[in-house]
């Protein structure tokens, strides 16, 4: 496809359950970012990949959050033992160049609700 694809679009998880969120970036995009967007707020940075290398994971809120991009294309954000405060929209973005100079292309996000 032409855009960044995220799946699932919606996920309801019971507290304590593990979840995996998938991001298919635009083909050939080197940089991939994960952001967390709470209701009514701007996105907050979680982690950044350049190809398969995770160059920055400083935004991951706890060690329950883990992201990978093993072949430098598809990325997965995994949240273990989900908590209610993890409820948010998780946005993936990719960029053709290193960094954000040319703007990110965002996916539509995965809305995670922890009950």
């Amino acid at each position, binding site marked *: 496809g032409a855009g960044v694809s995220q799946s699932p679009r919606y996920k309801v998880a019971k507290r304590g359950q593990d979840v995996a969120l998938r991001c298919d970036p635009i083909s050939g995009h080197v940089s991939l970012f994960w952001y967390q967007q709470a209701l009514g707020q*701007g996105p907050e*940075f979680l982690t950044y990949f350049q190809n398969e290398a995770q160059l920055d994971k400083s935004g991951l809120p706890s060690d329950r959050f883990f992201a990978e991009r093993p072949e430098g294309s598809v990325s997965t954000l995994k949240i273990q033992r989900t908590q209610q405060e993890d409820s948010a929209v998780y*946005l993936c973005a990719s960029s053709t160049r290193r960094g*954000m*100079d040319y*703007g*990110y*292309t*965002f996916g539509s996000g995965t809305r995670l609700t922890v009950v």
Partner: protein
Amino acid sequence: QQQVKQSPQSLIVQKGGISIINCAYENTAFDYFPWYQQFPGKGPALLIAIRPDVSEKKEGRFTISFNKSAKQFSLHIMDSQPGDSATYFCAASPHMDSNYQLIWGAGTKLIIKP
């Protein structure tokens, strides 16, 4: 120092009017200032961006005004249309290879009344 403060939180403008959204920042290392537009159920989309070497950038009906000394920048939407109704986010980042994180404002929900 990492914050970007955005106002107003919500804005209602008549069709054909000018919509103005303001942002302020503290970190003098910031030198990339994009605006994103987000429709419900969609991810943000880059609208327009500016670097502080210019005071204004215009693309169609959208203009960024930048005041480096005041550490403020604003988005002006001329001839606002109902299709412009969306949430707008300002953001900022240092332009260094090792620092690519965008720091986002809290967003402005814009409603254009027909």
